[in-house]
């Protein structure tokens, strides 16, 4: 290699680093972790139904059709923000939304649902956050799409708004429903 050519080695190395790190930082996308549970079955659980406070619910109660699973809590400000959108989806989209009431006070949670209306087919009380851990949840709100066999196909971290529903979630729901026909 001539001396002139070798002058470009640092530049080439710099460009390689820039491209590599550029991609790397894009993947991190601030706070959104890549989910380790995509395409894995919904973890099993035994948790009390929030409304009845008695009845035990398990993963089988969620499986059967394409559905949304939403992790929420009254302590979570973004859950209030996304709530109207969830109500709209449950009203207009003919899709079940199951709630996981994450690390919450049951009495407060029921009051909250009364105040803001209840979009959930039912919610379970995950008082200790064990189901949330099994789902790889690290905050709230988080929303999962499960297919009719109970496999997790999509995860969204953060509030669901009209844009997220239209661009990220609905296409997956439509696709999964298309597979069933």
């Amino acid at each position: 290699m001539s001396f002139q050519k070798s002058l470009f080695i640092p530049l080439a190395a710099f460009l390689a680093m820039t491209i590599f790190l550029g991609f790397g930082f894009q993947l991190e996308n601030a706070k959104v972790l890549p989910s380790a549970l995509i395409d894995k079955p919904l973890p099993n659980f035994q948790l009390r139904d929030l409304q009845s406070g008695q009845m035990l619910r398990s993963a089988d109660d969620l499986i059967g059709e394409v559905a949304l699973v939403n992790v929420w809590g009254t302590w979570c400000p973004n859950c209030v923000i996304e709530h109207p959108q969830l109500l709209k989806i449950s009203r207009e989209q003919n899709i079940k939304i199951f709630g996981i009431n994450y690390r919450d006070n049951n009495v407060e949670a029921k009051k909250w649902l009364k105040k803001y209306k209840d979009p959930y087919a039912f919610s379970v009380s995950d008082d200790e956050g064990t189901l949330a851990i099994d789902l790889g949840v690290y905050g709230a709100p988080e929303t999962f799409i499960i297919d009719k066999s109970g496999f997790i196909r999509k995860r969204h971290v953060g509030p669901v708004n009209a844009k997220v529903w239209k661009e990220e979630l609905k296409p997956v729901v439509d696709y999964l429903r298309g597979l069933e026909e």
Partner: protein
Amino acid sequence: MLFVFLVSRGTVLASIDAYPFPNKELTDRYEELISELRCPQCLNTNLAGSDAMIAQDLRREVHRMLIEGKTNEEVLDFMYYRYGDFVLYNPRFDLKTLALWLSPFLLFILSGFIWLKTVRTEKETLPWEEEDEKKFNEILESRSD
């Protein structure tokens, strides 16, 4: 001064929930695990150093698994299965982390190669022979006048 020390020490200990273990070996393993697992919510703090809700829950799970007699590897698997590479400060070797693990070695080899090249080029372009010595001396003498 002593008071400040005691108070600050108190707050440091307060952030770590006191989980009872039957023996020192388990306590040590607990400390080791929570220091080498990253809190999923807090970008760069380990489980030991975070007060986030999820960190508290995960410490509780680590404690539970150790009491149940799980090995360190099983605890790490549990976390890895749920939170992926992110939770491990010591990432696993697989296809996704290949570049991460191999790049230091590749860079080392590459830099060695560049170094060798540079040394050789220098030798080629700067031969120091008798003629140069003569010229050099001539210049020195002409300057000293």
